[in-house]
């Protein structure tokens, strides 16, 4: 009997270990489950200084191209953020005043908190053998600007001046493949983590800098932060380190935490906040504040 209990005691940790392994790994069926539905906004390409609202409202062809792309997303059961209503909402904001035109795109993306931007552009070509239309579709991730899909589509040559008809024809030739390529990149996100950007900076009265020794090993603060990001991401890229700033332009974060819950930018930001608040430089305990815009997290040491 004693031997039986000893054997059971010996086997118990193995059982616990086996449980941990099975819960921390995603099964293929779980991998196929959607955890988050990224927000997507389709908007027209516009040059610096152009009035984006006028561009869409005065040009029906632009609206046709945008609608055709949105229709393709709808056919996959996906709803996009309405660009025009976002612009109208922004009109009350200073961002649409003429002297701040260059910042309009950023303002719209940030105000909509959209994860993925799809830019559409068209070009009407007249020719002796008929007219045709070219559409350029570009999708990118808003925080890290990682390219997701790029396609150029051409309509058939027709003896027609009806640009919207040609636009519809041109979009239809490539939009399904455009979405398929995007889905391939989404599969990469499932495998290698979603994109985030991190910016650590200092308040003017913080009294520390990125070279100050912090943490248990008394390493420079920038290195302590890099080590934490390295341990809590699938991969990352540092854009630069100065005494005042550490910029991670790409951080690939798992889409799920250990409990299988969606790891959003706010929840990831909270983990960073907890870690930074646990740090100390000498006898001074560090305090931080965070700001999250879409998938970009700004952390300031107070």
């Amino acid at each position, binding site marked *: 009997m004693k031997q039986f209990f000893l054997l059971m005691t010996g086997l118990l940790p193995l059982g616990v270990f086996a449980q941990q392994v099975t819960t921390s790994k995603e099964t293929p069926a779980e991998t*196929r*489950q959607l955890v988050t539905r*990224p927000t997507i906004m389709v908007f027209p390409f516009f040059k610096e200084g152009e009035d984006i609202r006028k561009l869409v409202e005065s040009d029906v062809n632009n609206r046709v191209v945008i609608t055709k792309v949105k229709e393709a997303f709808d056919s*996959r059961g996906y709803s996009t953020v309405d660009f025009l209503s976002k612009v109208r909402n922004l009109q009350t904001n200073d961002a649409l005043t003429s002297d701040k035109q260059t910042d309009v795109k950023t303002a719209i993306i940030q105000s909509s908190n959209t994860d993925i931007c799809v830019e559409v552009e068209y070009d009407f070509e007249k020719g002796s053998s008929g007219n045709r239309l070219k559409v350029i579709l570009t999708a990118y991730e808003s925080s890290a600007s990682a390219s997701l899909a790029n396609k150029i589509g051409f309509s058939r040559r027709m003896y027609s001046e009806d640009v919207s008809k040609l636009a519809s024809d041109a979009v239809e*030739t490539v939009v399904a*493949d455009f979405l*398929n390529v*995007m889905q391939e990149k*989404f599969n990469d996100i499932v495998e290698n983590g979603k994109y985030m950007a991190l910016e650590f900076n200092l308040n003017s009265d913080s009294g520390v800098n990125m070279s100050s020794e912090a943490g248990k090993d008394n390493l420079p603060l920038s290195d302590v932060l890099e080590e934490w990001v390295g341990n809590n991401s699938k991969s990352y890229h540092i854009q630069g380190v100065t005494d005042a700033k550490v910029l991670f332009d790409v951080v690939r974060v798992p889409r799920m935490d250990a409990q299988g819950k969606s790891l959003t930018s706010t929840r990831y930001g909270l983990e960073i906040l907890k870690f930074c608040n646990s740090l100390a430089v000498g006898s001074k305990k560090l305090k931080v504040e965070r700001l999250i815009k879409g998938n970009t997290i700004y952390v300031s040491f107070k």
Partner: protein
Amino acid sequence: MKNVIIGCILLAAAMLAGCARTPVSNQIAYLGQDTRGTLKMRVTGFGSKQIEIEHNAQVKAFEQLLYVGLPDATSAEIKNTDFRLPMVENKATVQGMPFLRNFFENKDYRRFVTELTMLDDKKLRASNSERTLPFAIGINYDAFRRFMEQNQVIRKFGY
């Protein structure tokens, strides 16, 4: 010496018999689109009976869409790239799924077949017992994709 010659003849006969059983490769090509969300493709099926040949051709058509894609989807006027990429990114992750096995074994795929036309009624010999026949197969692609999404064979749009 006599035994060696007989042995060689038997070996050659066995090799020839082995070659004869090699099935002809299945030819798959894009034929066109009648309406958006559907496609028509030419597929060569093989088997010993008509029903087997039809089943083989249809399974090949769906497997092509799932695992390979149709890179030659080019019509006379414009290039159609809708089916260029396979629906499934990694065949190994889904191949053993009981749902997919049943989908093909129980011929559930027939719900998405809009057309099955024999392109040639002359059966070509593939081996001693097997023949091949080319078919034009129409598939309701959008419905098929949605069905695969609902049954978690492929991911819904998103991550």
